[in-house]
């Protein structure tokens, strides 16, 4: 890793406005790969910018790492994250391996609406147009709790139109869950079915993954996608036996370490069926590199339905997000990341999966508390005059 590359990576991760100018030259031969601002190792995007920012300062998922998304309850927020991850891979023309689900899954990937930066711009534009008259006095105070790890630009710095950013290679794209992805690369996805066998149901999957990695050229980047692992509607009962599933995870880890710069994996698992308090899940967690747990609030779907356009800028969180383990950081010993130990809340909207620090909203009618809650204290009198 040379100093130069590291330097470019730093500016890409930390400051987007600087990246616009510096990214004119391609920094990596593989699209969708950039060096981590933390230690320069190659990373790729998960397809959700706020999840990228959560991953221990690497601003992306480090290559050769597995991330496990656990979800409580019957919702499918983890599935949405997984679709973003797969769609990002398709757009970056990486090779996607989807395990265990039929090909319809691939047709339900969210549609591309531009790069993540362009969505950020549109969003701030829209906020300027549609802002509530009550809210605009807070405008210059900035968005409360904006972004994760302060990655977002203030809206005033954005001048470029959305079309311009398509020219440079983007690290992360924005997708719309209500649209369907139409991309040439989508036919390039491979679906690995679960074949019933007396032996481990994972043996065939591993063989296929190994073969695909071995037979592809060395500059192909792979993504392994495993929706709802061990879900009894997909997996046979024998799959959840420790000697099968743990051996699979161990072999997957071996595969990852054999190709440390060419493959990443994202796996989701339903926690309601396999609670975290069980030894099996704990071993799966020990064998993965990153663990994210989603705890959706009960009935959050109702509140989203009733919240009109007025609250579209500040949507209520739909659940809590816990980070139990982050790639690289915890392997080293853990603990020194600024994001560790925070309470996170997530919001899934049509166009984004957003992770923010969790804070309870001020009680309604409690104006004093609301004023106190705004960063920077009371706004000046001139700001308040209409």
């Amino acid at each position: 890793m040379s100093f130069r590359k590291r330097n470019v990576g730093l500016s890409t991760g930390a400051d987007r406005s600087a990246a616009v100018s510096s990214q004119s030259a391609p920094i990596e031969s593989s699209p969708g790969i950039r060096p981590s601002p933390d230690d320069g190792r190659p990373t790729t995007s998960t397809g959700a910018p706020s999840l990228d920012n959560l991953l221990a300062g690497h601003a992306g998922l480090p290559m050769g790492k597995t991330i496990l998304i656990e979800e409580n309850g019957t919702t499918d927020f983890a599935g949405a994250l997984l679709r973003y991850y797969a769609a990002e891979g398709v757009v970056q023309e990486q090779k996607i391996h989807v395990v265990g689900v039929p090909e319809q899954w691939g047709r339900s990937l969210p549609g591309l609406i531009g790069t993540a930066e362009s969505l950020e711009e549109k969003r701030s534009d829209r906020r300027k147009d549609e802002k509530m008259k009550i809210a605009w006095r807070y405008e210059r105070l900035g968005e409360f709790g904006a972004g994760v790890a302060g990655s977002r630009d203030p809206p005033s710095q954005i001048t470029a139109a959305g079309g311009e950013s398509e020219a440079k290679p983007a690290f992360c794209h924005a997708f719309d869950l209500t649209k369907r992805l139409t991309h040439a690369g989508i036919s390039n996805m491979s679906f690995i079915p679960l074949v019933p066998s007396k032996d481990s149901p994972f043996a065939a999957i591993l063989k296929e993954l190994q073969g695909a990695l071995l037979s592809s050229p060395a500059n192909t980047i792979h993504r392994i996608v495993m929706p709802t692992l061990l879900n009894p509607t997909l997996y046979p009962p024998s799959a959840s036996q420790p000697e099968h599933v743990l051996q699979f995870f161990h072999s997957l880890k071996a595969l990852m370490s054999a190709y440390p710069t060419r493959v990443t994996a994202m796996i989701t698992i339903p926690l309601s069926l396999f609670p975290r308090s069980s030894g099996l899940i704990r071993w799966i967690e020990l064998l993965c590199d990153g663990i994210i747990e989603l705890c959706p609030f009960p009935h959050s779907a109702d509140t989203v339905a009733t919240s009109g356009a007025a609250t579209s800028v500040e949507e209520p969180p739909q659940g809590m997000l816990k980070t139990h383990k982050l790639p690289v950081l915890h392997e080293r010993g853990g603990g020194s990341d600024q994001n560790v130990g925070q309470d996170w809340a997530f919001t899934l909207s049509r166009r984004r999966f957003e992770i923010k620090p969790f804070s309870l909203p001020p009680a309604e009618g409690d104006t004093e508390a609301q004023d106190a809650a705004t960063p920077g204290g009371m706004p000046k009198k001139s700001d308040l005059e209409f």
Partner: protein
Amino acid sequence: MPSQPPLPPLLTPYLSDLPESSLTVISSVLGATSNWLVLRYLHASLSNTANSNTSPENNGSIGRTSRKVVLVSFMRSWDFWKTEAKRLGLDLARLRDKRQFVFVDGLSELFTPSASAFSTVPVGSANHATLPLRNRPTPVPGRGPPAAGSLDRSAQDRRVQGDASNSVRLHFRGRGTAALDAIEKDIISELHRQRASSDENEELLLIIDQLDLLLAATGPGLGIGATEMADWVMGLQQHAHATVLTIAADSPLIHNAATNVHGDCTPIETEHAALALGLAHRARTVMQLRMLETGAARDVSGVLRISRGGGWNAEAKHSLDEKELLYYIQRDGGLRVFGRGES
């Protein structure tokens, strides 16, 4: 170079001077992994002979006798250990060439039968994504039954095959104690090779990283339980001067077996608890790593509790103070160890 000394003074007495045939158990949990501590053991054992650039305060306290180390890792690759050790100023690759250190790979091919093709692809930094397009790797011709082959091959033969395949790879084939015995034989042959090349006063340290994986991923379904694993460890201990083990001690793995009186806990939990408790009773020292009970803190990674295990011998000349310390791993890999309330 890390700003802190690689070995904090508070820890040094525990890391060096491991008595004859002693067992040290390091227990870790999900958020507080044991890798950094294993690396400190490596450093304490290997640095004095290997490194001229270690900080001067280390030279007096440790290493009157030189040591050899065999590291068996079931969860992490050679690349990981190599890069992390480099952060401490320890060149494992060079030490391995000097036969000071041996890495036994329990990750790459433990459960994957057709993985001999793995070694055709260069592993590590050479295979970076920025490299230009390269030709399709062609599989090597078959090299016979892997388990037997790894025994027969001489060290010279292995060195030819390049960096990644330089170390012995363990294979789990079949079931029950026969499969364990095969793995044991592979490790023992490495221990013997190390011992044969060493002097009289050289101590041989065996470190087994996460041997509990072997139990979890096989279990009673394949005829392996806590008793078999404990015997397996005992068999290996006989061939080394001292042994250091790491084992997971997460609450679901330890406490489910004890608290669930309804019988709804799975074999993986009962067997793991039995193994972990059994080893702790045999150990001289138990190094227990866990997270802060009070939640995450920015300047604390976790808690390290050092206590005497069941195998601690009061008459022995080596004293062992029980302690509870906080530790903090910095971003650059440096380590700070301090008592509660200190900083």
